[in-house]
């Protein structure tokens, strides 16, 4: 039985990838997790410069969900390349870098810095972060801007470019196709949904920034739906994301058409969740009499609509 998958020319030993912003830069967890069992790791989002992020409180729990406004606090791409990337080299897992920018130029510039860095398996373009004032989600909700930024980044690298889509749109397939047309090799689906939680006693938002991004099991049905729509609408591979906590959750995305999945919020509860998910996916494949994981990708039997 094999769990290996290939995405955008990248072979992953299994379809489980740690989602951006929920696994630090990887090294924070080296004492907690055997990083080598992961198919891949997406780093926290990186801009050209270091960034302070949003004022606290930055996270608040909602029913089966986590609302966050971290605001892409980070060390900047240069520090990442020089100080962190070398320490990741000894782990046998694909390192994907989540690239951010306030402008198209910045996205391209961050990508170029990474181009010469050894050990970067690919780029995940974050055009969908709801917690920044410029850039971020503004790109991901507009097909023309999406096309523009993907095209520039495409020019800046020979590495696989994965575009991370925002769910805060009327029709995600329009954005997905814009990214595909502009040269994306794969699509990550989805980032967080824009939400607001209010502290009724103080009548202020519970987050320092105001609104935040909703993640976790609460959003899974929305994420599975969008993954399915995007997989139908494009020819490039899709990586499913949203509320995955166990093997059955991951399998929903794979059956809907994702070639791999990312695990986000669940890392906070248990960064070792990968082990049990892999074991349970294997058991599932056995039960279903399927030898390769890839056989179940997109195998959803959707009812014919009369």
């Amino acid at each position, binding site marked *: 039985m094999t769990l290996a998958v290939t995405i955008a020319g990248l072979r992953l030993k299994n379809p489980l990838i740690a989602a951006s912003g929920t696994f630090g830069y990887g090294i*924070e967890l080296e004492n907690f997790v055997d990083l080598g069992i992961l198919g891949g790791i997406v780093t926290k989002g990186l801009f050209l410069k270091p960034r302070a992020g949003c*004022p606290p409180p930055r996270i608040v729990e909602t029913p089966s969900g986590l609302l966050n406004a971290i605001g892409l606090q980070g060390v900047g791409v240069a520090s990442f390349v020089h100080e962190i990337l070398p320490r990741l080299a000894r782990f046998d897992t694909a390192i994907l870098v989540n690239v951010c920018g306030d402008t198209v130029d910045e996205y391209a510039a961050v990508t170029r810095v990474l181009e010469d860095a050894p050990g970067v398996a690919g780029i995940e373009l974050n055009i969908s972060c709801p917690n920044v004032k410029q850039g971020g989600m503004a790109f991901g909700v507009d097909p023309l801007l999406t096309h523009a930024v993907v095209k520039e980044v495409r020019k800046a690298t020979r590495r696989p470019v994965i575009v991370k889509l925002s769910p805060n749109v009327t029709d995600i397939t329009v954005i997905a196709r814009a990214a595909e047309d502009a040269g994306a090799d794969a699509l990550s689906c989805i980032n967080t949904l824009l939400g607001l939680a209010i502290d009724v006693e*103080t009548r202020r938002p519970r987050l320092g920034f105001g609104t935040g991004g909703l993640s976790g099991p609460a959003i899974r049905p929305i994420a599975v739906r969008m993954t399915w729509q995007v997989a139908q609408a494009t020819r490039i591979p899709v990586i499913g994301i949203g509320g995955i906590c166990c093997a059955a959750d991951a399998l929903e995305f794979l059956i809907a058409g994702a070639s791999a999945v990312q695990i986000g919020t669940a890392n*906070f509860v248990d960064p070792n969740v990968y082990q049990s998910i892999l074991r349970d996916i294997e058991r599932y494949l056995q039960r279903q009499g399927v030898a390769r994981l890839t056989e179940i990708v997109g195998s959803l039997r959707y009812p014919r609509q009369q």
Partner: protein
Amino acid sequence: MTGVVGRLVEWTAPCPTAIIQSMPSDLDAALVERHSIGDAFHVLVFEHGDVARNSRPGQFVMLKPGRSTALPLRRPFSIMDVDAERETFSVFMKVVGAQTQALAHLRIGQTARCLGPLGRSFQSPQSPSLPLLIGGGFGIAPLLLLGAVLRRDAYEPRVFYGGRTIADLALRRTLEDLGFSLVLATEDGSLGFKGLITAALEEHLDSCTLPTSLFACGPGPMLAAVARIAARRGLPAQVSVDPWMGCGMGTCLGCVVPTRKANEERPRYRCACTEGPVFESSEVVWTDDRASPSRARETTP
């Protein structure tokens, strides 16, 4: 209550500069004892050899009842006591919401996911001095372990313990039994000094001439007051802060506190889970306390 507080290992010796001072481990820890003080307060004793052996005062554990990897997240609790021989540690828990409720009602033998020990501990005083330990509400918890270690090291710590009303001072008997020199304060005057514990502290400092160091844990406004007092009097003070924590491991960046070290040009957000929860009070940038959301919301259970 939980056996002798503080059959401890070394506390700052091994690697004083490291951020995470010891390797945390993640176990299903069984509840072995529970001591309830009314409905709201509980001392819970869990089996967990690594926490029992490696914890230093001020460190914490992330707990979650049951085995689920779904939300809700784990919750942070200060380590109140350890017993290296029995391989147990204890936490002092105030029930405020669904997770503290569920943890407080675990049956003996049931397990919680337990990750720890985590975070930066209190540091031993730089020079011989009188340690004053200031605890507000459940913030008293880490001060028990700290007090025990200080005494072992021949200090004579004095404990200031405050709450809104007498019922909040649930650990006062334990502190008495342990023989701590104790100052109690309640806002409503139902026990001890009437007023804020920081007012009691100031009164004491006004009449005390010994070199003193402060160690505090409690609600944000209390810590801010301690920081002001320390700054005004030029006393060293360490405070343990209590922000929202998502992971306890430095990955969510949810628990940040604005800080500024002496050599830094401008403030920086630092993670309370890895670079804290204990900070020098002079290094914390005390804001209008947005970091402590109202606790009164009726949560949807």
